[in-house]
């Protein structure tokens, strides 16, 4: 049963701390997306990669956020330093096609920054 996995599932941290979220996409899914979901803004695309190369990070605050794909089985999203307004659920998704095709989502990381 192929699934997208995300770790950690929950993270509580203090303002100013570094946060790293990890995602393992489904094997063969070479397009990987990072989304953020909040009550106020809904689901927003932060960035996506294709074949590990960043193609679009226009939705990501560049000063504190960074996204990488060290290898085909791992995508990371880092926030440094974290702020209370970063509190949200962060989802990773992937597919074998491209950004306009159906996407397979992970369970999310719920981040709370106090």
């Amino acid at each position, binding site marked *: 049963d192929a699934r*997208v996995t995300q770790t950690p599932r929950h993270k509580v941290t203090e303002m100013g701390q570094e946060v790293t979220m990890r995602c393992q996409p489904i094997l063969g899914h070479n397009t990987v997306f990072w989304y953020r979901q909040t009550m106020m803004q*809904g*689901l927003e*695309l932060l960035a*996506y990669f294709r074949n590990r190369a960043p193609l*679009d990070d*226009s939705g990501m605050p560049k000063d504190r956020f960074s996204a990488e794909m060290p290898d085909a089985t791992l995508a990371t999203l880092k926030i440094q330093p974290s702020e209370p307004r970063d509190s949200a659920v962060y*989802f990773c*998704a992937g597919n074998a096609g*491209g*950004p*306009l*095709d*159906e*996407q*397979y*989502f*992970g*369970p*999310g990381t719920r981040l709370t920054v106090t």
Partner: protein
Amino acid sequence: SQQGEEDPQALSIQEGENATMNCSYKTSINNLQWYRQNSGRGLVHLILIRSNEREKHSGRLRVTLDTSKKSSSLLITASRAADTASYFCATARDTGRRALTFGSGTRLQVQP
């Protein structure tokens, strides 16, 4: 701003009834997709309809697309308590940023 807006924001029905959710969007699209999200979970893809299609079925789901009105509807027939979830439409534009834009969702409650 949101590309897709769902209507209604919330819907409560009895088990066995049909549920209809609508999505309106602003710009021309390549395709439109519907996703379901159970509480505390990730989104699950339900159905994709392309801009040259008018209707699509998948099990108890029926999706229509009217590109002249820039709107789509999702019909769930014979609803079950397990259908309780939030439903989102996502539009894939045919120009501009190559990405899905999600609406704000419809929260569906199916009473047993």
